[in-house]
C-alpha cells in the first residue's frame, strides 16, 4: 500500500532485511519509509486557517464560554465526570484564546512549528472541551486528532519559516529532509476510520436507508442555511440513492484510497460529498476540516509532478542563498516568545476595552429583556396533544412509485392514468387510520378510501385509477386523519388522449 516515492532509511532497511518481505515487512515499509513531508506541510498550512475562523469568532466570547466568569459547559459534565478539567479564570481564558490565535498563525507559516502545533493542540482541545454547546463538535475532535498527528510529525521541515531559516543556517541542508511516513499514514487511517465509523452509524439507523430521516435532516435549521437541502426534499429517490452511495463510499474509503485511480476516485467523491453537505445540510466547518486530512494523501511524487507543471510559469533565479548571521538567528529565536507575550497582554487589554458583558458602559450593566405576557402565557399553556395536521408531513401526487416514493409529481392527469398519492407522516405518531378521499369541484365526496398506518410506518400510499367514469374537470384529494381534514390537493382531470379506454373501476 506504500506510495512509490518514499524510501527506507538505514535502520528501517536493516529491519526489513529478510529473505521474503512478508506482512511484517510490508507494515514496516508502510509506516517507516522515509519521505519529504509535503502532505503534512499542506495540512499544517490549511487546518489552522479553518480553525482561525472558528477561534476568531469566539475570541470575544472567551470569558463567557471558557471561564469561571461565564457559563462554561464542560463536555465531561455530560458524561458525569464533573470538574474533570480545570476551568480558567476570565483573564486566563482570554490569554489562552489569544495565544491560540497567535499559535495558529505561527503554525500556518511554520515558525517554531512543533512548539506551535503542540500549543495549538493543548489549548484548542482544552478550551473546546470546556464548551460543548457552541464550540466542541465532531469537527473539533477531528481537528484535535490532526493537530496531535502533526505534533508527532516534522511538518515544518518544508514550506515553512523554519525551513527558510534552516537553509540560511550555518550548515544548510542540500536536499529537503526526509522523515518516516507514519504520522501521515496515521492521518490517512484516521479519516478512513472516521468514515467507517460514520457508515456504521448509518447502518445502525434503518430509517437512514429509507430516506425518511435523511429527508428531515435536509430540513433542519440547526446548522447554517441549506436551501438546496430543502429543495432536495422534493426528490426523495435522489436522496435515497445518495444515501446508499455515501455509505458505500464511506466503507470503501479506508480500503481503496491509497494509490492509483482508487485514491483519486475516493478523494474526489469525498470532496463532492463534503461540498454536498455544505449545500444540503448547511455544514460549513466540518467539510473543510475533513478535507484538510485529504492533503495527507499527497505524496512527494505528486509534488514533483506539479512542480514540473508549474516550472514553466516560474522564472529561474540563480541567486544563491545568503546565510543569516547568528545574531539574526538569536533575535528570531527571542522574537517568538516575545510575540506570544506581547499578544497576550494586548489581547487582555483589548478584551477589557471591548467589555463583552457591557458592565463598564456609562449606563451600567444591561437590563434583562422583558417578554410579552401573552407570549409567556402561550408558553405556559401545556399542549401535549399533537394536532392531526401536524401528524402529516406532506401529500404528494405523481405517476408512479419508485423506492417507496412517488415520482413524476404533477397535478394534471388524463382519464385512464394512474394517480399515486402519498401521505408522509411525522414521527412519532400513533397507529392511524388515514383517509385519502376524492372530492369533486363542489366538494362532494366521490370516493372514500382509508388505510391503517401503524406507528412504525412513515408513509401511506394510495392508488387511484382515473377511469373515464370521472368527467374531465377539477377534483381534489382530501386527506383526513382522526376524522379531521388535514390536507387537500387540487387535481385537474383532462380527457383521455385516445377515444375510448377500458379502465377498471378499481384495482
Amino acid at each position, binding site marked *: 500500500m506504500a506510495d512509490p516515492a518514499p524510501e527506507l532509511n538505514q535502520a528501517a532497511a536493516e529491519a526489513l532485511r529478510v529473505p521474503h518481505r512478508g506482512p511484517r515487512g510490508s507494515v514496516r515499509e508502510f509506516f517507516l519509509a522515509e519521505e519529504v513531508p509535503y502532505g503534512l506541510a499542506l495540512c499544517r498550512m490549511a487546518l489552522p486557517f479553518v480553525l482561525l475562523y472558528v477561534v476568531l469568532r469566539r475570541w470575544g466570547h472567551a470569558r463567557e464560554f471558557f471561564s469561571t466568569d461565564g457559563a462554561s459547559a464542560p463536555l465531561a459534565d455530560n*458524561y458525569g465526570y464533573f470538574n474533570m478539567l480545570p476551568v480558567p479564570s476570565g483573564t486566563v481564558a482570554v490569554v489562552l484564546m489569544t495565544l491560540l490565535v497567535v499559535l495558529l498563525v505561527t503554525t500556518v507559516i511554520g515558525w517554531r512549528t512543533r512548539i506551535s502545533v503542540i500549543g495549538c493542540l493543548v489549548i484548542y482541545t482544552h478550551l473546546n472541551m470546556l464548551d460543548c454547546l457552541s464550540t466542541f463538535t465532531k469537527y473539533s475532535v477531528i481537528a484535535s486528532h490532526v493537530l496531535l498527528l502533526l505534533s508527532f510529525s516534522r511538518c515544518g521541515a518544508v514550506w515553512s519559516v523554519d525551513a527558510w531559516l534552516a537553509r540560511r543556517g550555518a550548515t544548510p541542508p542540500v536536499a529537503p529532509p526526509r522523515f518516516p511516513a507514519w504520522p501521515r499514514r496515521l492521518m490517512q487511517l484516521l479519516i478512513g476510520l472516521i468514515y467507517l465509523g460514520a457508515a456504521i452509524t448509518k447502518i445502525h439507523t434503518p430509517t437512514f436507508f429509507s430516506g425518511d430521516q435523511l429527508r428531515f435532516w435536509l430540513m433542519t435549521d440547526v446548522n447554517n442555511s441549506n*436551501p438546496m437541502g*430543502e429543495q432536495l426534499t422534493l426528490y426523495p429517490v435522489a436522496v435515497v440513492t445518495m444515501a446508499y452511495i455515501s455509505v458505500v463510499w464511506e466503507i470503501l474509503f479506508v480500503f481503496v484510497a491509497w494509490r492509483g485511480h482508487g485514491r483519486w476516485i475516493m478523494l474526489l467523491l469525498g470532496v463532492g460529498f463534503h461540498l454536498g453537505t455544505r449545500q444540503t445540510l448547511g455544514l460549513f466547518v466540518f467539510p473543510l476540516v475533513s478535507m484538510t486530512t485529504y492533503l495527507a494523501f499527497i505524496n512527494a511524487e505528486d509534488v514533483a509532478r506539479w512542480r514540473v507543471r508549474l516550472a514553466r510559469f516560474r522564472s529561474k533565479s540563480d541567486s544563491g542563498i545568503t546565510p543569516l548571521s547568528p545574531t539574526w538567528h538569536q533575535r528570531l529565536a527571542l522574537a517568538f516568545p516575545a510575540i506570544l507575550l506581547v499578544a497576550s497582554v494586548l489581547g487582555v487589554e483589548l478584551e477589557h476595552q471591548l467589555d463583552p458583558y457591557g458592565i463598564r458602559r456609562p449606563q451600567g450593566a444591561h437590563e434583562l429583556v422583558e417578554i410579552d405576557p401573552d407570549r409567556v402565557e402561550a408558553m405556559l*399553556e401545556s399542549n401535549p396533544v399533537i394536532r392531526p395536521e401536524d401528524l402529516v408531513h406532506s401529500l404528494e401526487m405523481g405517476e408512479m412509485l419508485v423506492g417507496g416514493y412517488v415520482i413524476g409529481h404533477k397535478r394534471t392527469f388524463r382519464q385512464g392514468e394512474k394517480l399515486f398519492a402519498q401521505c408522509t407522516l411525522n414521527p412519532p405518531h400513533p397507529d392511524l387510520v388515514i383517509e385519502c378521499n376524492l372530492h369533486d369541484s363542489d366538494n362532494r365526496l366521490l370516493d372514500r378510501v382509508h388505510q391503517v398506518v401503524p406507528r412504525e410506518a412513515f408513509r401511506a400510499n394510495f392508488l387511484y385509477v382515473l377511469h373515464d367514469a370521472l368527467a374531465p374537470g377539477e377534483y381534489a384529494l382530501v386527506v383526513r386523519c382522526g376524522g379531521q381534514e388535514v390536507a387537500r390537493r387540487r387535481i385537474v382531470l383532462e380527457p383521455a388522449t385516445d377515444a375510448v379506454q377500458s379502465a377498471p373501476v378499481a384495482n
Partner: protein
Amino acid sequence: MGANGVDSGARGWLGRIRLWAVSVVIVSYLGSLGYGIVCHTLNFNTASHPAMYFVVWDMFCGWSAYANRLHIIGEGEDGKYYELAPGPWTKFTPFGDLSRHDYDPFLNHSSDIVRNCLKHTRAKPMRRLLVIEEYWAKKYNLPDSVWTHFFDETRKKYSYFQLRQVMAPCGTIVRRFPSWLDRQSQLVVSAQPLPSHPDSSSVGLSSGLRATMRPLDGRSSGLMPSLGGGSSPSLFPPADFEPERAPLAQ
C-alpha cells in the same frame, strides 16, 4: 572496540529505542481508534467516558420531524417575565441562527447559563426560573416553493410548549420534566394513560413554585387525547367506516 564502533553501537541502540517508541505510538493510536469503532459497532461503552467522544464517530444519529427551541425565562418578583438566554449582551449564534443555549438538549448547562446572565445584568429579584421547550413540525420551515408542492393550504405554524425545568432564583434545579417529543413517543405506544407527573404538593414546593407547573399539574396529561369524532373514546373512531364499496383507490 574503537570510538567509531561505540558511536555506531549507540546509534543502533537509540534507533531501536526510537523504533519501539514509534511502534508503541502507532499501535496505541490505532488501537484507540479501533476500540472506538468496535464499541460503536457493538453499542458498548460509547458513553462511558468523555474520551469516547474522541473515538466514536456517530455523526448521524437521526433527526426529528420537529424543530425545537429552548426558552429560558425568569419570573421576577414584580410579576413580569424576563428572557435569560441569550444574555442581553450577545447575539452570538455558533453554527446557524440558533443561540448557544439551544444546543443544550439535555439541559445539563442551563443553570450555569442562567446564573451567568443574572450575575452580569441588572436583574430584578427573581421568583423562579423556567426552561420551556418549543416544538413545531419541520414542514413549517420549508420555503414556499416546496410547501406548494405538498399542500394547497396556507401554512399555519403551530408550536407546542413543554415546561422542562424549574429552577430556584439561585439557579438550583428544582424539577425536571421529560421533553415533549419523548412524551409523544411514550404516548404513541401506550394505549393506557401514562403515569402522570408527581403532584406538586407531594414534593413540598411553595405555592408560588407550584404555580409555574400548571401546564402539567392538575391535568390528565397522560390520557390519550380525543381528536374529535364525538364521544368515541378511541383516538380514531370507526364511525367513518361505512360498508366497503368497490374502491377507486388502494
